[in-house]
């Protein structure tokens, strides 16, 4: 009854518990089937990093094709076998690479990896809990995630290739094996993998919500929560509300594929045969998919915002500007994100009136997003900025979010979307605003909380090299892509040689590919730094960044299961008392009562 035990530990033995294990921990329970949220966070992080490299490697292969369409790369054949015969990438496998790259990055890296790592690590530590509400469900959540990653990876290596209909897998293309090879077994595996993923997401999400609501330590009112926890909390709610809809979409797709139903299929003549299905509509799938799909991009970016808020404030030695507005804008973004999905469907044949409604709601999301950016800028204003690698990445996130967010104004406008819909302009927009920007948030998190996770520091110099190469490469890849899109080049084209007018973009494509490789090299530097620092990094002090939040009060290093020896600390103040006038130091941890800081108390804080 491990579940009950952990919960008991966290709730009942709140004040006087000295945590010791009643049972002996084996390698298996400590590192593999661990129920310690800190270990699970590391498991998520390492799995996500592996998947991220896999996804990145795929993007490099298809970037080679786009940047050097005429060149034969002999090594392709040894890398990807029959799909790279004669050194040329197979067009079908190009589609597969694009699809699986998108799936891996969106779901496994930026959803599972980002939320899974940092919600797990920081929620219990920052709210002052011994562990998650249910350690067992938490463990299950990771193993479903792992299973999901394993199935998706396996699908890449099957005879007919993985799913290849784009990461959105619109039927009928994805429903009919005769429409393309990837819609056979590859698509089945994609659906299986996604089902596991949805399960992990729900198990994780429910756990995060319960922990934040029930297991906050004494004094930790909701208004004293760090913005990281707020972001994870709202993200989890969003995920629990929307992922089941994706499950419904996937389930109906399974029915259409395997049981002859017509939810999404109607009037189809393919492979010389008229299919019997009638009455279904692919647009139904699009609605269901994007009902998750759009909140999904906020599920990705909100945790990154949370991490950034924390890093900007801590490393700026200054309270986050407008705490209440930051929480309010998180909530507003989360709410609005559920009613904007139609902006992915302006030209799908959806009623134009609906298009008008979705334009309205979509541009509304820009308002809380703008508030966030302005508040970040106000936080930096007159701060005392410590440009650690984490801080650099946090600043990079803000820059990328501005760049990508602004082009969203064009895409969110139904009229303007007509001509850039599904072009490279969209590819550029979302890679900047939720791809690169969220990765920057995640990397900021890794650099900042690495000492908390592994008890060692990452190498700063390599961190800076990683940051600058990545920043330059990301802009180098995605900035020129906007022009290709405005030139009318559709996305997901194996080759742009079909229309002569696109030839002028070949140079830009070559340039983009070169930058993509630069970005990859930078990530290898990061990987080296990450692995090296786990084993050989400098030992971390207890509170390396002089931070106020609770996670830095628990024993350094890998820590103990239960987080604190002795009682859980009590919280007396909000987490952003940095550089408070009159205080002895430039930070006052949340555990310091007002009675000990008479000189710096503001009116009403006695």
């Amino acid at each position, binding site marked *: 009854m491990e579940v009950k035990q952990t919960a008991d530990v966290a709730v009942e033995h709140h004040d006087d518990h000295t945590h010791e294990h009643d049972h002996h921990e084996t390698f298996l329970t400590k590192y593999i089937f661990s129920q310690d949220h800190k270990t699970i966070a590391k498991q998520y992080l390492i799995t996500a990093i592996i998947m991220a490299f896999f996804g990145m490697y795929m993007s490099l292969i298809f970037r080679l094709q786009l940047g050097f369409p005429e060149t034969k790369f002999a090594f392709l054949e040894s890398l990807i076998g029959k799909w790279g015969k004669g050194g040329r990438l197979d067009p*079908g496998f190009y*589609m597969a690479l694009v699809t699986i790259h998108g799936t891996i990055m969106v779901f496994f890296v930026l959803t599972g990896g980002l939320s899974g790592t940092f919600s797990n690590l920081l929620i219990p530590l920052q709210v002052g809990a011994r562990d998650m509400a249910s350690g067992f469900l938490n463990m299950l959540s990771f193993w479903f995630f792992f299973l999901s990653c394993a199935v998706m990876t396996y699908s890449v290596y099957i005879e007919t290739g993985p799913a290849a209909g784009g990461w959105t897998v*619109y039927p*009928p*293309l994805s429903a009919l*094996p*005769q429409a*393309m*090879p990837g819609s056979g077994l590859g698509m089945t595996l994609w659906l299986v993998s996604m089902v596991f993923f949805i399960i992990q997401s729900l198990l994780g999400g429910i756990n995060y919500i319960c922990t934040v609501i029930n297991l906050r330590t004494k004094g930790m009112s909701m208004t004293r929560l760090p913005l990281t926890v707020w972001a994870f909390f709202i993200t989890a709610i969003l995920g629990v509300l929307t992922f089941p809809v994706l499950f419904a979409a996937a389930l109906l797709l399974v029915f259409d*594929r*395997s049981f002859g139903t017509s939810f999404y299929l*109607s009037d*189809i*003549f393919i492979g010389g*045969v*008229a*299919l*019997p*299905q*009638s009455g*279904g*509509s*692919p647009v139904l799938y699009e609605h269901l998919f994007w009902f998750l799909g759009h909140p999904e991009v906020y599920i990705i970016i909100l945790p990154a915002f949370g991490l950034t808020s924390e890093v900007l404030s801590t490393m700026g030695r200054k309270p986050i500007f407008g*705490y209440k507005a930051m929480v309010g804008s998180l909530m507003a973004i989360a709410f609005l994100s559920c009613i904007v999905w139609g902006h992915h469907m302006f*030209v799908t044949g959806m009623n*134009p009136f609906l298009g008008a409604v979705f334009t309205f709601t979509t541009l*509304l999301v*820009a308002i809380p997003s703008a508030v966030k950016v302005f508040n970040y*800028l*106000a936080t*930096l204003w*007159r*701060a005392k*900025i*410590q*440009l*650690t690698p984490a801080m650099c990445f946090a*600043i990079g996130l803000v820059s990328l979010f*501005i760049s990508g967010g*602004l082009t969203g*104004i*064009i895409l969110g406008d139904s*009229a*303007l979307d*007509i*001509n850039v819909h599904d*072009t490279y302009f969209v590819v550029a927009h979302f890679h900047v605003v939720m791809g690169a920007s969220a990765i920057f948030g995640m990397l900021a998190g890794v650099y900042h909380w690495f000492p908390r996770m592994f008890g060692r520091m990452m190498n700063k110099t390599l961190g800076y090299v990683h940051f600058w190469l990545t*920043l*330059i490469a990301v802009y180098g890849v995605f900035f020129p892509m906007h*022009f290709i899109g*405005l*030139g009318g080049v559709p996305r997901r084209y*194996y080759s*742009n040689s*079909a229309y002569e007018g696109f030839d002028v973009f070949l140079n*830009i494509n070559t340039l983009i590919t070169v930058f993509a490789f630069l970005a990859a090299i930078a990530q290898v530097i990061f990987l080296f730094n990450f692995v090296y620092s786990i084993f*050989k990094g*400098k030992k971390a002090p207890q509170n390396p960044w002089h931070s106020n939040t609770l996670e830095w009060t628990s024993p350094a290093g890998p820590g103990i299961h239960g987080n604190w020896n002795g009682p859980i600390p009590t919280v007396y103040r909000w987490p952003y008392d940095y*550089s408070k006038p009159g205080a002895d130091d*430039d930070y006052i941890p949340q555990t310091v009562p007002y009675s000990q800081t008479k000189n710096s108390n503001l009116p009403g804080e006695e």
Partner: protein
Amino acid sequence: MTLLITITILLGIIVLARLMTIVQLSSELTGSSDSQEEQVRHNNSNGFGFIVFMVLGLGLFIYMTIDYSKHLLPVSASEHGVGLDKLLNINWAIIGVVFFITQIALFYFSYKYRDNKKHEAYFYPENYKLELIWTIVPTIVLTTLIITGLKQWNGIFSEKENSMNVQVYGYQFAWITRYSGPDNILGKSNYKLITDDNPLGLDASDPAVKDDIYTTGNEMHIPLGQELKFQFNARDVIHSAYFPHFRAQMNLVPGMNTFFSFKPTITTAEMRKITGNDKFDYVLLCNKICGVAHYTMKMKVVVDTPADFKAWLKSQKKASEVKAAPPVSTLNSTANGSNSI
């Protein structure tokens, strides 16, 4: 060979790791590691880096915008497209201003307020007035943009008078265009009637089919100055009809009729003069992933004068030549793998 590469990479990693250890140990010995001074040095160099990045980045932004503008789409060849381009430019202007202000503020602050031991941070947790301002101003700007955008959107999708009905039909991986003929009605079709001789599945029993005309080659013509109402249909999977030069796009969805109207305003010949490229052609592209050869699914579009258009239409296939065939039974199809995994 592979073995050799693997060994080289492994050796490289080991050497790097050793080097790291040495650097780390030596910095610990000299006592400079992780001290405040070291961080201040990092603050200075990276803060300076942000300024350089900002200046070079914004410079390149301006340069590329000017340099690449000639590669972008030429002036819109449709009536509504001109308005859209104008709207796009207004959006760009506003976005550009916000982009410059915020990026400059971000990088300048990162540089200016780096910790160089010369100042303390200013405790400034909130200012309602300021926050209200930057909530309300974007709201007003966005509302204006929404309203101007929606005006155009509603204009594009409003019912037009005297428009010619044209069907654009897509299948893996080609297009057929059908013209409604003198009666301006697209005759009925049924996907179960599709054969090699009747690729659109036209229903010969419908009198409106008789005068329809459809393309057999990979080229469609449209008459200048004529309002066209396109009806889009797909045979197998979702496609998207994308006419970049006319600022027009609509998906083709199996089982559904979708529509888009536009009026071409520049003939191909005139556009060749405008672009200075005597090989220029308009194009219809598939812009929704539809299978392995998705990237090859395109059709040449020619805007003719009305007289030339009429002459060209005569060379295309008449629907009256299609023989009435009984609907194919769909019973066999279940055995043909539509349901298999």
